């Protein structure tokens, strides 16, 4: 991100254009159609001028009306019909053009969406965390929609506007150079007004958007904190805060109303001034040039001048759209460019059935490398053993889980599973064999069965078995639809404990070779608590299991306990041994009555 902004924007524009490459031919066709469609706009005034100049003056003057009447009448009809024909052609080609552009543009958007989606899947969790879910979501959705405007409105619009502008200039010059120049006299004024007013309007608009964003955020916050506001009787104060924000907002809107009220009408005054210039010049020329005196030319000129303002206005308005689409494009591009940071699932890497031997050898790791969480952690778990990690908050317990599944890579040392370094395992093979139960249970939209299966091919019977093993059947069986009960809003209808049990079932159903479980610290009532304890015991029996334990109930059936301190093992052994040792572990157990560590880990 060291590029200066202007270069960034330019390269984003280049990137956007490069996405269009596969559709070159179609776009070329669309371009041709745009020209065809807008030629009509250019020709229309000319036909009109021809009618007025070549046929009507004589009639208006009344001189040759009778003599040439029959013939002229026919020709006017002919011109009228060709006028309509031109409009038909123009309408048809502009229709076709916009269909082509739409098709191409939507395809590009689809491809971009898919690229982003798979990119997000391959991102390392550390990068994902850094970026934040909100921002990432914006990249994948809103920013892509913003490109729609770039391709749809801007690309075809820009091309049309430029073509029209230059077309009008050419047409005017070709009809009469001096009249044209008189018309252009107002041009500098238009540019000046546009630049000045639009700039002020844009700055004000940015301010306006910032304030309205604040206002909306404030309202949302107040609504979610309504019971606090009421409990403290602070309704009036909160209202006053909003009135204050709204006063600031009002000021910016007044400026906007004022400027908009000036800008458009002033442009029309300038427009009329240009027409007046043309008329005056026309009057002068009509006297000076023998072959002039043509009303049609004047009418055509004034029509062109009127047409001239539209694309200019349009361009000024599109400037904003282009800017914001380029910002979106830049964001998408910079995300997609980080390809080297992605995870790769090497098909040739080691894959095999995990026996369940886990070894950490002098592992150093920090989410921020300068600030290591694990400092030379070593331990060895043999197949079939159940071990627990305990220790104060921030000792690095949860980190162990993330490293085992290779969500992050260690900075120093080795992690071996079945004697093979996790970095040499094929990612998909490694992860699919490790059953991870996280503290923060995530439930997908779908039924309970879907959530246990997570798309794997597991029969209903097996799902039921897993649920009963995890003791989740105690509440699932009470639901009218049983395992086909739909989980609403990420499982909000279930208690923390119930969600935990579902996630146990998920781990069981996938028959992992290695079970890794981060116990919940959250408050769970005593009955559920007992259920969970029994469940953990049942699902881990005879299986290599690693627990990040917060409860004594779990610790007691473990073969070995590691007491972590400062990112390394300080004490290890069975519960009784450690109590006998009477060291830090024993002190920890005695200090807390019900839980070993109650402070939740920082998010």
């Amino acid at each position, binding site marked *: 991100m060291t590029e200066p902004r202007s270069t960034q924007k330019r390269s984003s524009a280049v990137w956007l254009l490069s996405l269009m490459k596969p559709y070159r031919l179609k776009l070329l066709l669309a371009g041709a159609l745009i020209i065809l469609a807008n030629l009509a706009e250019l020709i229309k005034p000319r036909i009109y001028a021809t009618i*007025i100049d070549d*046929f*009507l003056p004589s*009639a*208006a003057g009344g001189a040759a009306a009778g003599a040439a009447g029959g013939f002229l009448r026919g020709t006017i*009809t002919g011109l*009228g019909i060709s006028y309509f024909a031109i*409009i038909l052609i123009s*309408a048809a080609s*502009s229709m076709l053009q916009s269909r082509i552009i*739409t098709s191409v543009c939507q*395809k590009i*958007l*689809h491809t971009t969406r*898919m690229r982003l*989606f798979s990119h*997000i899947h391959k991102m390392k969790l550390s990068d*994902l965390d850094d970026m934040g*879910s909100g921002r990432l979501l914006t990249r994948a*959705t809103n920013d892509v929609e913003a490109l729609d405007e770039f391709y749809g409105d801007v690309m075809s619009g820009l091309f049309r506007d430029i073509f029209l502008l230059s077309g009008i200039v050419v047409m005017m010059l070709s009809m009469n150079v001096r009249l044209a120049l008189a018309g252009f006299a107002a041009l500098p004024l238009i540019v000046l007004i546009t630049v000045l007013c639009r700039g002020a309007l844009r700055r004000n608009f940015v301010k306006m958007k910032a304030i309205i964003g604040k206002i*909306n955020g404030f309202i949302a*916050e*107040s*609504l979610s904190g309504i019971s*606090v506001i009421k409990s403290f009787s602070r309704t009036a104060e*909160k*209202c006053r805060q909003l009135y204050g924000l709204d*006063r600031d907002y009002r000021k910016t809107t007044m400026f906007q*109303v004022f400027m*908009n*009220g000036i800008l*458009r009408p*002033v442009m029309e*005054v300038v427009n*009329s001034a240009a027409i*007046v210039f043309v008329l005056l010049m026309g*009057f002068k020329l009509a006297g000076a040039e023998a072959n002039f005196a043509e*009303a049609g030319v*004047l*009418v055509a000129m*004034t029509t062109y001048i009127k047409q001239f303002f539209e694309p200019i206005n349009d361009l000024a308005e599109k400037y904003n759209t282009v800017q914001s689409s380029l910002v979106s494009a830049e964001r998408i591009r910079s995300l997609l460019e980080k390809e080297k940071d992605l995870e790769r699932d090497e098909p040739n890497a080691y894959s095999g059935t995990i026996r369940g031997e886990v070894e950490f050898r002098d592992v150093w790791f920090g989410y921020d490398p300068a600030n290591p969480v694990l400092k030379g952690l070593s331990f060895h778990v043999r197949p079939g053993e159940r071990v627990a990690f305990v220790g104060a*908050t921030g000792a690095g317990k949860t980190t162990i889980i993330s490293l085992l599944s290779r969500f992050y890579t260690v900075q120093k040392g080795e992690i071996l599973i079945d004697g093979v370094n996790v970095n040499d395992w094929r990612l*998909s093979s490694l992860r*699919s064999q*490790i*059953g*991870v139960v996280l503290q923060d249970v995530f439930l*997908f939209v779908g039924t309970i069965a879907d959530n246990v299966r997570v798309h794997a091919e597991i029969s209903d019977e097996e799902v039921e078995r897993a649920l009963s093993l995890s003791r989740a059947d105690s509440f699932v069986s009470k639901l009218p639809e049983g395992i086909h009960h739909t989980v609403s809003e990420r499982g909000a209808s279930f208690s923390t404990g119930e969600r935990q049990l579902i996630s146990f079932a998920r781990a069981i159903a996938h028959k992992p070779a290695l079970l890794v479980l981060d116990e919940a610290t959250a*408050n769970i009532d005593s009955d559920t608590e*007992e259920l969970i304890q029994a469940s953990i015991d049942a699902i881990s029996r005879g299986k290599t299991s690693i627990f990040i334990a917060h409860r004594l*109930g779990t610790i007691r059936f473990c073969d070995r306990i590691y007491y972590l301190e400062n990112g390394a093992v300080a004490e290890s052994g069975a519960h009784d041994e450690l*109590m006998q040792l009477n060291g830090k572990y024993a002190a920890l*157990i*005695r200090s*807390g*009555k*019900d839980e*070993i560590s*109650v402070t939740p880990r920082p*998010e």
Partner: protein
Amino acid sequence: MIKNFLKKYGWNYIPGVALMILCSWIQTRAPLALGNAVNEAVKRDWQLFFRYTLSILFIALGVFVTRFGWRWFVIRTSREMEVYLRDRLFTHLLNLPVGFYTTTRSGDLMAYAINDVNAVRLLFGMVFAQFINAVSSLIFSIGEMSAGIHARLTVFSLLPVPLALVIVLGLGALVRKRAKYAQDMFSVISGHVQENINGMRVIKAFAQEDRQYNDYEKESLEKMRANRRWYFASAWMDPLIKTVFGLSCAIGLIYGGNLVMQGTIGLNEYIAFNSYLTMISSPIMMIGRVNNNLQRGLAGYRRIKTLMDVPEVSAFDMQDDKKPISPEIRAKNLSFGYNSDNPALANVSFSLEKGKMLGIVGPTGAGKTTLFNLILKLYPCPRGQLFVGGRDVNDIPAVSLRSKIGYVPQDGFLFDESIEENVRFFSDATREDIERYLDIAGMKGDIARMSEGLATMCGERGNHLSGGQRQRVALARALVRKPEILLLDDTLSAVDNDTEKRILQNLKTELKDRSCITISHRLSAVEAADEIIVLDEGGIKERGTHSQLLEMGGIYAHMYELQQKGESHD
């Protein structure tokens, strides 16, 4: 709700509409002036030519002044309307009973506050203006064409125009329908992406990337098709209208040309007539948008109106009667249910004296928080069942009652302001007070470690702080108001044991002349209480002091045993 606004600002619409009509009328002068000027340029009558040319400029200036004028009167008023409506709506929302929020999602309310307020603003501004403009300029143009130029020419050339109207309205409806579907699809794909981001660990752990990709691809393709269908439909609009008006113009050119040649109308009128035809096309095209925004505005207005009609809490509850309230709480067979068939509390009785503490324990859903909601008058309480300071809570204005209560919610909700502002929360507490109570709440050390100290911003819902920190700041917020009654809803659940002990110790001295009710999952927080109630399924199952309850050997003792397992194993 709109009446008051119109009383204050409604007059703006009178000069607004007058200027709008004047503006349209002036605009319809332009084509004639142009036609005349061109005509005289050819005829070489300098004086007349100069007059007509000058009139073009004056017309432009007139349009400028009148247009600016109506925009100032009407559009400005619509912005006033936006602010007024939002302020009123917000005030109303905050004054609604809390029960309302359990049945309405705040996301919907946000949609009212943002989209509907905007739609109504447009209705009272641009939509109104465009409608008046369209109608008046249509009337003036057509009037000028038929009365001033040639009636039959006008009728013939305008023959195709109704077709344009049909297209605008009919096609407009189709475009609207398809646009809505495309927007719905956007929500679908957004939802999918969001779920994937949030559930990334699970997806990776279960190697579900390919499956998710395939599902998403289906949705993305559907979104692509939806967009395409929407754009395709709207791509018909412009060309069709242009064709219809092209037909009008062609008729005008041919028939009008012939009329000129017959000498029925002059060249100037011919030129003007064609300008009028172009002028008519824009109000017709605008009718589509006006109709669209009109629908949205009316729908938005109706939704806001319905919302504003929900009764607020009574005026009685909104004022402070300044009467002192002694910190005694008594419940007499208190029963309450959020809905009729499912009581949250049933026959709960207790009595809490000044200087005493009541502990409440029990499983989730036992009705513990409900009790607090009733004491705070967040929900209507049945008469004769709950008394504070000897008075039925129904007889104490909510504001008076709440000013005596320090409430610490379970989640420690904080506002996105500094820690200092959150603790002060509009009270007149000094900085020293704030620091003192943060110290009592055990936050001193944490704040000392923050680089910005008291000025640290808490973030949305307080998410820049940890759960335990949030709870302690919320505790200080309650204490700093020196309440008579303290309600602690599992306030220290995310605080570690040592800190909890220290805070409880601090609280003991603070509570000397006050009363306190503590809800807790952790028994350590209620051990010292003068009475402990075990609630389950809305009713009192056991009561007594800590030691009495242990002796009883019931639910409480069982809970205690579960939480004590570690030690007993020792």
